[in-house]
């Protein structure tokens, strides 16, 4: 780990101030991703601004929804009685990720800001456009089993590794941020970026901006949700493909559909046309297959991850079936019903 300056902030204003004029500074909260990246020399901050003492740990009622403080831990959120009852999709997505130890430390804001687990990004002996812009992308044409099949560019095929964010995308959460230019709200779909020609930028946060909260809308989809995660082992592994599905039903007819995929793109992947296609259709397999076909038609896989296209197609169908039946995927009973 490199040597760095340490600043412990007591307020959001102090944190923003401590960042100003230090372009190589990083905010640190749970540290579960940043400290790891520092051990690999992928991150070499000149200054760490410790934000763990900021008053942002609460989970509060707001406008019929919930406001998750940026420092509420992943465990705080997943086990909050209101989250479990009203947003089981979010609770289940969080509990599908990482380990109990990591969830106890990792923060809500940090989960949004975690970096890709692309092997080449982590290996400083190889080029990587995300780590070192312009150096190249060895994952393209290389070992690409865990990489993206949607929204890739010629510069980067990395995925965003979060489970929580896939649920937040489906729920259409809103990210509250503060920075040198004041406070603003960012709809979840606009928070993360596709790689394009600037894969070094994961999000649309401006330099020095800090996430202060994540707002969950009042619309909660009740029990007609699921988080279905498919991976190489049954716990404590990143998703190869995951599906967050949420439906509102009128009897057997779909009134609203939300579908977000994890493990397949640089951000939680949604397809507005597929969601629109489901509206007004009967909540049955034929409808779900049509939507899934529409989603995967846009896939551009590598040789190493072509299997994800069929895996995603089937996961979408199964996820929508689970949501329609109101039988969310169990985190402990791994059988897929």
């Amino acid at each position, binding site marked *: 780990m490199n040597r760095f300056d340490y*600043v*412990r902030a007591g307020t959001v204003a102090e944190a923003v101030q401590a960042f100003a004029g230090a372009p190589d500074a990083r905010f640190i909260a749970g540290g*579960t991703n940043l400290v790891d990246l520092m051990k690999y020399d992928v991150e070499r901050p000149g200054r760490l601004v410790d934000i763990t003492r900021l008053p942002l740990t609460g989970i509060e009622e707001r406008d019929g929804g919930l406001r998750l403080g940026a420092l509420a831990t992943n*465990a705080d959120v997943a086990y909050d009685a209101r989250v479990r009852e009203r947003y089981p999709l979010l609770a289940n997505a969080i509990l599908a990720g990482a380990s109990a*130890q990591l969830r106890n430390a990792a923060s809500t804001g940090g989960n949004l800001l975690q970096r890709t687990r692309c092997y080449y990004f982590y290996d400083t002996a190889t080029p990587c456009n995300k780590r070192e812009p312009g150096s190249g992308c060895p994952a393209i044409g290389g070992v690409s089993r865990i990489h993206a099949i949607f929204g890739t560019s010629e510069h980067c095929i990395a995925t965003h590794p979060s489970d929580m964010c896939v649920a937040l995308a489906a729920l259409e959460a809103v990210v509250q941020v503060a920075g040198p230019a004041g406070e603003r709200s960012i709809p979840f779909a606009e928070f993360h970026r596709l790689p394009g020609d600037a894969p070094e930028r994961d999000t649309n946060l401006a330099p020095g901006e800090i996430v202060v909260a994540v707002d969950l809308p009042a619309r909660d989809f009740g029990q007609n949700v699921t988080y279905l995660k498919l991976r190489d082992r049954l716990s404590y592994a990143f998703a190869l493909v995951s599906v967050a599905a949420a439906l509102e039903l009128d009897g057997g007819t779909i009134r609203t559909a939300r579908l977000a995929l994890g493990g397949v793109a640089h951000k939680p992947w949604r397809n507005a046309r597929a969601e629109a296609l489901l509206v007004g259709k009967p909540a049955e397999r034929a409808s779900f297959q049509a939507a899934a076909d529409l989603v995967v038609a846009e896939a551009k896989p590598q040789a190493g991850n072509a299997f994800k296209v069929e895996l995603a197609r089937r996961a979408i169908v199964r996820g929508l079936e689970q949501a329609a039946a109101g039988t969310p995927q169990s985190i*402990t009973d791994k059988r897929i019903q």
Partner: protein
Amino acid sequence: MLIESGSPVAADNRIGISLTINGQQRELQVAPWTTLLDLLRERLDLTGTKKGCDHGQCGACTVLVNGTRVNSCLTLAVMKDGAEITTVEGLAGLANDGAGSNGLHPIQAAFIEHDAFQCGYCTPGQLCSSVGLMNEGHAKSRDEIREAMSGNICRCGAYTNIVDAIEDVMQGEAR
């Protein structure tokens, strides 16, 4: 309150912190890049806590911070100023009678009873994680215990007996 360590290039930018470790309060000067794991092992000779992967993947470094299990390898000591730390050396002190039977925490006795380890390298982390799991109170069934212990890898494969030991202690507490 704003606390600054000074310039990163300064040779001696250590920061004073206070930690209560296994019930004993310690005033320490630490460099900000010192992990809690390295502080425990290299400075305080509390070598029960093990360094396995050093990247949060194996769980061998699991300790309790304010009663909550975390990976000490991914924790910067300076950020835990004021916290209570419990390592495997302090588990017995958490037991109700101060020492537990044979000077062991019930989970330690249960690990012996159920033969829940072979080489023992992961065991301090497994023990601290087990206590953290019971403090959390979410895992009830055997499947839930298995899922909640997935952050602790055992390359000898003692998982079945580890779950037996945890179940045993949880059932004992419920009686």
